[in-house]
């Protein structure tokens, strides 16, 4: 895939529902050929908890805790687990399916290697941990999730910049089954962040883009007003709406 063109939407901050809606809108555009395959990098404000497409709202989210802390809630279009989006970088890669392996598990690894290799550039030894995680010293620094619709692959994922475990677990209902399986002595030892390894978010961002430049030619772009307007509307009506968030 050397030198394929990739639309780059550099770091920008949106609220949770708009972020998830932008992914859907850009997937549609890539599908109909009205924009290039796209890499977007973004943050979330206000902070937001996202749950996977198949998760039960009540099982996963402490709704009262979110309300008290002014934290948004969204349900993603992708499976996977609940995530507290606060001090982190998030990416979405939206490309035709054939850019990566047809085997979904294999394609997770192929895409996650951009993160692993970016960390390597910065002197941090990380490894891909199937199905969809990246670990540093057996602690999770990145979670990723993928969907494929109409021939288009969307993989989005987070890289934790800083971690406030107390706050994270006041917003999420973390099941004891999951923790014990990962052989983690305590919840606090299950996750790590760039900060804990002396990596600045800005440096990771640059290294991540450098990794993509090995394979793609970036066409730097900005969100069109039409995209922002459509995503704001779709975010309100779908991703941030209780009909959707509470569907399971």
């Amino acid at each position, binding site marked *: 895939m050397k030198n394929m063109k990739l639309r780059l939407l550099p770091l920008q901050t949106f609220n949770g529902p708009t972020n998830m809606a932008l992914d859907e809108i850009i997937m549609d555009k890539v599908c109909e050929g009205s924009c290039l395959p796209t890499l977007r990098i973004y943050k979330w404000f206000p902070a937001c908890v996202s749950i*996977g497409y*198949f998760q039960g709202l009540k099982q996963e989210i402490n709704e009262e805790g979110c309300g008290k802390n002014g934290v948004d809630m969204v349900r993603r279009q*992708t*499976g996977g687990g*609940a995530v507290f989006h606060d001090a982190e970088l998030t990416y979405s890669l939206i490309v035709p399916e054939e850019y990566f392996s047809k085997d*979904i*598990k294999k394609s997770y690894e192929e895409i996650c290697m951009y993160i692993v290799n970016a960390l390597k550039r910065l002197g941090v030894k990380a490894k891909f941990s199937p*199905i969809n995680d990246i670990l540093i010293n057996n602690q999770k620094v990145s979670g990723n999730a993928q969907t494929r619709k109409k021939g288009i692959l969307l993989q989005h994922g987070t890289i934790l910049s800083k971690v406030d475990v107390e706050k994270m677990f006041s917003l999420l209902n973390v099941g004891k*089954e*999951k923790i014990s399986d990962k052989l983690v002595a305590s919840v606090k030892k299950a996750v790590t962040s760039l900060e804990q390894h002396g990596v600045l978010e800005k440096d990771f961002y640059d290294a991540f883009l450098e990794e993509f430049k090995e394979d793609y030619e970036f066409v730097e772009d900005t969100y069109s007003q039409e995209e922002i307007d459509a995503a704001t509307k779709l975010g309100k009506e779908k991703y941030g709406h209780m009909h959707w968030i509470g569907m399971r």
Partner: protein
Amino acid sequence: MLVTKKIPGGKLIQIDFKVAYGAIQKIAITGDFFLHPEEVLDEIEKTLIGRQIENVADTIDYVLKKNDASFIGVSSQDIQELLDEEHEA
């Protein structure tokens, strides 16, 4: 009845179900697994209603095949085993 299991090497699955005379009366499957395409879970749940509990895996496989769908992090057999364990318990 709500049952939960973290599949070794896979994902967490929770099943809220009710059985009467050996047949599924209600079932809701949640968790942090993946299923492609995602919408097929609704069809799986609907199709399972009225089926005998021992036929759950076969029924799920039928719906998956019909939709060219696949689970990641959980399998139809995992779901069958979880229901069997709890139902017999």
